[in-house]
Every structure is written in C-alpha cells, then in structure tokens.
C-alpha cells in the first residue's frame, strides 16, 4: 500500500471527522446543559441535509443562502421541541423522566425520518458543486473539500470564542459543570436550557449543509450519526470542544483506515465498538465528578 493511498484516505477522514465533531459539539452542549441525550440529534442532520439538497435542486440557491434560511429555523424548532415536549418531563421522578426523554426523542427520530422520507423520498441526496480539484502527486483534494474544512475550522473557533467570552457561554459552561451552583448564582436555567437546545440544533444544521456538499444524506441515517457523536463526546469529555474536535477527526481517519486495511463494510461499526469498549472500561469515567 503506497503512502499516497494512505494520505488520500487520511485527508478524507479528516474532513468527515471534522463534520462528526461539529455534530458532536451540538450534542455535547445539549447533553452538558440539559442532561438529555437527544436520540434525534443526528436525524436533524439527515433531515436538514435532505431539505438543503432539495432546495438546491429545485431553486439552485447557493449553499450559503440555504444555510441562512435553514439554520435559524432549526434553532427555533430545537428550542420549541425542548420547551414543548421535553421540559414537562423534567418534573417527573428521575426514572420516569429518563424513560420519558428517551422515548420522546426516539419518537421524534422516527417521525422526522419518516415524514422526510414521505415528502422528499427515501433516496440519498447531496449538493453536487462542480469544483476544480488540486492534485498533489497522487492525492486529490477538491476546492469544495477545502472550503468545507475551512468552514469547520471557522465554526469551531466561533463556538469556542462564544463559550469563552460571552455570558451565555459562561452560563453554559457553568451549568455543564455544576448545575446546582449555576442556579444558586441566579443563572436562568430554563432560558439557558432552551437557548442551548436551539444552539445545539442549529450547530447540527450547519454541519448538515456542509455535509451534503460532499457526502450524501438519506432520511434514515441519523441514528448512526447520533451514536458517533455520542462516542466522540464520551471519549473527548462532555463540554470539552477541543477534545471533541480531536476525537472526531481521529474517528473519521480511523473509519477511513479501517476501510482501507480491513474492508469498508466494517467502517460504520467501529464507533459502536469503540463506544462499548470505552463504557465498559470507564463506566463512570466521563461523568463529571465534583472535585
């Protein structure tokens, strides 16, 4: 196997992994602040991806414009989903609340996937931009890929800056680390949770638009992505975005290399296996412990 082949796979893996990391950011924010594992998280990517490609196919809108239309919409829907359906469950006993949130988010997953499949068809779609490619030796990188990579970097930095410098970011970090203390300080927990659900969903929506620019989406692919994103935040640490970025990229590269050396049919399985191994090895290692 030549070095070029391996490098080509690594480049593809970095790109895919960066997108995984973006998906994981949203899940990490939501899980950290609201403590609900949103099983429908990855499905948002699938659904928004399908919508974006339909919009592109029917009206030839530019992907930037599509993002500007879809992302705020998803923000609002995410926030309403939390307020309308999940928030009322928090009043129940912890066990009932856990079961309730799992079932409601799984129910949302089923409905979202199926409604999308009915309206847009169950097939795969993407936005194909015919961009020139750069050839470095035997390695091929398209301009689209470079643009996506740049967008991932910019978005990651933007989220990082928001978390580090704004009041919202401070509150998010505080609630993630010490929900009790944050409320003691007067942080408006309902507002922060609602906002976080919106922001987390909007982050996936952005990832979705970038994703369909090179990889296809279909309405039923979401759950696999949720598992990947969850693997990433479990390994990288909840609320730790740089960690998520590194782990996401490593996961993307690992999937590529497993495909290269072992067989592509096993690529989608490694995140599940990795997740199982981590949870078995460190059953409580990733739960935030008070110092």
């Amino acid at each position: 196997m030549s070095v070029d082949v391996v490098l080509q796979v690594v480049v593809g893996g970095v790109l895919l992994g960066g997108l995984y990391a973006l998906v994981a950011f949203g899940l990490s924010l939501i899980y950290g602040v609201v403590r609900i594992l949103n099983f429908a998280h990855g499905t948002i990517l699938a659904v928004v991806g399908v919508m974006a490609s339909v919009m592109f196919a029917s009206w030839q809108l530019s992907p930037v414009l599509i993002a500007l239309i879809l992302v705020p919409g998803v923000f609002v829907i995410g926030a309403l989903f939390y307020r309308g359906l999940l928030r009322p469950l928090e009043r129940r006993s912890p066990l009932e609340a856990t079961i309730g949130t799992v079932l409601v988010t799984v129910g949302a997953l089923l409905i979202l996937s199926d409604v999308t499949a009915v309206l847009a068809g169950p097939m795969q779609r993407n936005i194909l931009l015919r961009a020139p490619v750069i050839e470095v030796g035997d390695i091929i990188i398209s301009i689209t890929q470079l643009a996506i990579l740049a967008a991932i970097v910019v978005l990651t930095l933007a989220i990082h800056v928001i978390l580090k410098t704004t009041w919202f970011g401070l509150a998010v970090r505080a609630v993630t680390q010490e929900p009790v203390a944050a409320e003691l300080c007067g942080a408006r927990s309902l507002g922060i949770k609602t906002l976080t659900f919106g922001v987390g969903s909007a982050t996936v929506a952005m990832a979705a638009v970038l994703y369909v620019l090179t990889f296809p989406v279909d309405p039923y692919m979401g759950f696999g992505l949720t598992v990947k994103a969850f693997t990433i935040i479990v390994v990288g640490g909840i609320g730790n975005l740089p960690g998520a970025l590194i782990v996401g990229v490593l996961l993307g590269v690992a999937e590529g290399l497993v495909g290269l050396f072992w067989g592509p049919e096993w690529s989608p399985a490694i995140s599940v296996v990795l997740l199982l191994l981590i949870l078995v090895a460190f059953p409580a290692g990733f739960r935030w412990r008070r110092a």
Partner: protein
Amino acid sequence: MLSPSHLPLSATLRHDRSGLLMRASHVLVVVFVVAALVFAALGAALGDTFFLRLATEALILGGFALSVDILLGYTGLLSLGHALYFGFGAYVSALMLKQTPSFWLAMGVVLVAAAAFGFLTGLIANRVRGVYFALVTFGLAQVFAKVVYNTRALGASDGMIGIPIVPIELGVVTVMSNAPVAFFLFTLGFVTMLYAVSAYLLDTSFGRVLGALRANENRVPFLGYSTHRARLAIYVFASVVAALSGALYPMLRGFVSPELMFFAASGNAVITVVIGGVGTLVGALYGSVILTVLKSVIGTMTEHHLIVVGLIFMAVVIFLPKGLMGFVRPRVARLLDGGGR
C-alpha cells in the same frame, strides 16, 4: 429524620400496598386469560387461522415485553437492545429444530444458552447506568445483529427458513405448532407461566431488594445485598424470559430473520411496556395485544405506519405516563381492598 419506630410501620404499609397491587395484576391476568379463551373459542368456531396466529404472535411478543418490564419496571434499567435476547432465542431454537424437531430439547438448549449469553453480555451492560445503559444495550444488540446479518451460516440478511413443524408433547396431549387453536392455547399457557414465575420471583425478598434498588441505589448495600450481583441476576433472568419467548417464534412462523434483533424490535417491546404500564408485568401482555391490533389496522390502512407509531410513542409518554395498567390497576386494587373488608 424520623424516629426509628416509624420505619417498620411505613414499610409494612408500603408492602401491603404493593402486595395489593400485585394481586390486582393477578386478577387482570385472569381476565386476560379468560378473554383469550373466549377469543380462541370464537376463532375455533369460525374456523379462523389468521387472527389466531396473529394473536399467538401477540402473545409471544407479550412474553418478550414482559422481560423488558422485568428490567425496566423492577430495576429501572431501560434496555434499547433487548431484542438481542429475543432474537437469540429465536435463532437458537431455529438451529436446534432444524437438527431435530424436538420441542423440549430446543427449549432446554435455549434456556441454558440464553442464561450463559445473558450472563456474559450482562457483565458488560451492567457496568453502566441510566442513559448509558440504554446506549450500551443498544450498541450490543447492533453489534450482534450486524454479525448475524453478515454470517452466511445463519442465513445472513435472508435469515433462516424452513423450520419444521414441531410436535409439543405435553404428557396427555401433543400440540402441533401449525395447529392454530392448539398452538395459541399452548402459547397462552406458556406466557402465563412466564408471568407467574416472574411475579413469584419478584415477590420474594429478592424482588423487594430490586424494588429498593430502583428506589434508592445507595441505600441497598447497607441491607447486605450486593447491588451488582442482584442486578446481574435480574438481567440474566430477563434475558432468559426474552429468549424463551423468542424460541416460540420460529415454531409459529417457520422462519427467523435478523430483523428480530434490530432496534425496531427492541423499541416495539419498550413501547409495549410503556403503553401497558411500566412495573405492572401484566401491562406487557395487554400492551402487546393493543400494539398488535393497532399495527395490524394501521399497517393495512396507511403506508406511513412509522409516523403513526412515533406519534403513539410520544403521546403515551406525555399523556399516559403510567400506561394503561397504571390507570386500571389501582382501581382494581381498590375494589379488591374493599372486597376484603
């Protein structure tokens, strides 16, 4: 805190209350069985096969849901991959029956194999709690389903077909697995037996430890039980109940396919329990009948059944959090209580 003298009193009160509820469950099972017998009589009189076989499937899935309720209702563990054990039972049974069509041998092997399999996988799953438990069980089921899906010897994605008709010797009578009425009655008896064993086990002191386990995880070690071992034991038991129910599936339908292990199957069992009522045991049986009827009607009426299923999912969780039995059972208990005095 309370004075020590208060504790035993409240504990007895609570036990009486749960005992009453359990008795209400038993009454509801009797009602269920009677209704099923009436249904069987009707079916036999009208010479029906389809509805009887559909009802038999509902019973089998009810047994599967029962095992999910044992976990969810009695230890608070939400499994999203319990179809793994249902499918395991179905596959082991199918493999055995293709070798020798002996019912008791197949069931025996399923019992032993499922206990061993449940123990090994339980060691993994029981390392984590809460939402992580849901995720690990989901992951385990996915990995195994993928392996089955890719294994030629197990029929891969096509599954295994051609499971022979099995004679079930019951001493005086022999039930053929393709006889609609007889096999329905046999399955009814079998699932009722699964219910009775589960109810008995959960009513022993061991069962009450589990109840305490759910109520307060940190306090149980002081009672002198190992929470980990108790949890593992119930996990193995639930796996065996699921596998024994699954073992009947190939006898009814004559085939097994990897879909039996997929998330949809696990998810269905969870909805069944939630619709029926978590922690009631009998709710699993009622829930299964309701869901089977619903899906059968929806399935022939609309092409978009998943949307409907998803909506039912959410609606039940939001509006009927205690399920059907959570609503009915306390009323029956009150009647029983009134009748006792």
